[in-house]
């Protein structure tokens, strides 16, 4: 049996003295994002998604490749389950719009289909957690079973609300990644970062308080309508769509900032050369796959360029396609985050 090759991907770096600068940047990012998201939510949303959606996926892909071991070893079952679930759930999710156009099912039937997909997602996450817990015998993750069942129950009560919750929770996962990353690479900054996170609920409460009484946004054209729908304007008709779009955009901006700026720049100096394939352990290792990794990077760059081109030609359609296909990166975050816990 082949033993796992443990890679020291993130050696503990020396704590730098400029933690205050880091805190100032984080606080500035949070406040600036909240201000822009509250001020012109639709316009800033269009610009933000256009500029950062593709690049953030590229950086996320690179980060996941850096976390991927050369040999799976005793994590073989974990990664097989992760990739199988990722493929099946993504295909099922992408096929839903096509089925919707082809089939004439009732709204109730569609709710059942969505609830089934959400349940499959929870079951897949549960399987990954179970496999991961076997590698961490000291960890007591048994309480996650009733939590998962309770989430399944809530999902069946309101599948649309559960799907909307995924839309809002997903950007926050990036903050969790950054927390784990800081604990490994900049432990001196970790405590300061966590203190900064206390600001997040305060800002969110302030935004909700300020924007809950505002008029709903004018979704007069197809693009604005798509943006408000994506933020849950149809699921929560009594809530101001201005507030929904602003809150979602605020979280998305933080999400993009973490993946594009924070994670690539915080760490070893070598890892900051994000264009260099040799900084990826899977490519650098003697038994690694440098050509495959280089090929993946090039294809990803072409995909980002194609996304920009698509946004330039038909922004609304490209946005629809992007947010459908992007479920893959939402799902991919789960196994890699579990590997860091």
């Amino acid at each position: 049996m082949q033993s796992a090759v443990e890679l020291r991907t993130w050696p503990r770096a020396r704590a730098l003295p400029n933690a205050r600068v880091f805190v100032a940047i984080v606080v500035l990012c949070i406040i600036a994002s909240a201000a822009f998201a509250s001020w012109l939510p639709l316009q800033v949303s269009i610009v933000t998604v256009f500029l950062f959606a593709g690049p953030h996926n590229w950086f996320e892909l690179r980060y996941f490749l850096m976390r991927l071991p050369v040999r799976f070893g005793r994590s073989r079952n974990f990664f097989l389950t992760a990739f199988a679930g990722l493929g099946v759930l993504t295909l099922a999710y992408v096929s839903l719009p096509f089925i919707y156009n082809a089939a004439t099912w009732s709204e109730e039937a569609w709710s059942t289909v969505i609830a089934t997909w959400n349940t499959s997602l929870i079951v897949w996450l549960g399987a990954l957690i179970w496999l991961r817990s076997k590698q961490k015998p000291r960890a007591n993750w048994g309480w996650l079973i009733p939590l998962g069942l309770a989430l399944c129950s809530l999902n069946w009560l309101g599948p649309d609300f559960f799907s909307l919750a995924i839309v809002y929770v997903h950007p926050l996962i990036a903050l969790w990644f950054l927390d784990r990353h800081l604990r490994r690479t900049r432990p001196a900054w970790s405590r300061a970062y966590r203190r900064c996170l206390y600001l997040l609920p305060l800002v969110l409460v302030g935004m909700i308080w300020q924007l809950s009484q505002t008029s709903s946004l004018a979704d007069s054209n197809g693009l604005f309508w798509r943006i408000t729908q994506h933020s849950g304007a149809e699921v929560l008709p009594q809530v101001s769509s201005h507030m929904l779009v602003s809150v979602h955009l605020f979280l998305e901006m933080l999400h993009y900032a973490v993946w594009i700026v924070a994670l690539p720049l915080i760490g070893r100096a070598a890892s900051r050369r994000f264009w260099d394939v040799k900084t990826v352990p899977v490519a650098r290792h003697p038994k690694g796959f440098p050509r495959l990794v280089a090929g993946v990077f090039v294809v990803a760059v072409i995909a980002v360029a194609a996304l920009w081109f698509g946004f330039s030609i038909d922004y609304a359609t490209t946005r629809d396609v992007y947010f459908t296909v992007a479920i893959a990166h939402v799902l991919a975050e789960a196994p890699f985050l579990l590997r860091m816990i």
Partner: protein
Amino acid sequence: MKALLFACCVVLFNAPVTSADLKPPTKPAEQKVTETKYILHTGLEIATDPKAYEAKLQISQSQLQSFRAALDGSPGNPAVVGGIAVSAPRTIIAGLLMFLAVSIAGVFLARSSSFGRTQKALAAIVLVAVLLGAAAIITRGNAGPPGSYRWRNLPQALAKGEPTVGGVDIEVVPDDQLSGRMRLIIPLKKQNSPGEE
């Protein structure tokens, strides 16, 4: 033969006469409303427009479809109607899963050695309270502050020309109650001026 023809004629000529007493089938849309009927709950914004010459009631296309679906008796868009647990099968599945969740959580709690007896009792009380609270919220989706809370500052907002947003129940009432008009009822309590009892 003559008797048979006579019998056929009697039957044929009597058919329209006898069927004339039957009530013709009415379409659902043509059914007359005889009592107040609750349609759905949605949001309402009251805004002023100094440039407008006539009051306007703006309804989005999706809301109009929801009204139509509700009037036709179909469930319409469940997200707008209420969203939570309008389907019996889904409610049953959700109930079973919640039962399993609470049962397993209780077993974990009881078997856990890291909690004392008092802590376990407290945790059980919190668990039951959360469960009852969640059930209350789910069964009464509008629970929370009363709907009138959002309308309390409507007069001041109208005076300032600012919009006010709140919930609204849409009801269909018999024709004789409104005589061709629409009526908007705002839940505002009379505010006594200072010194007035």
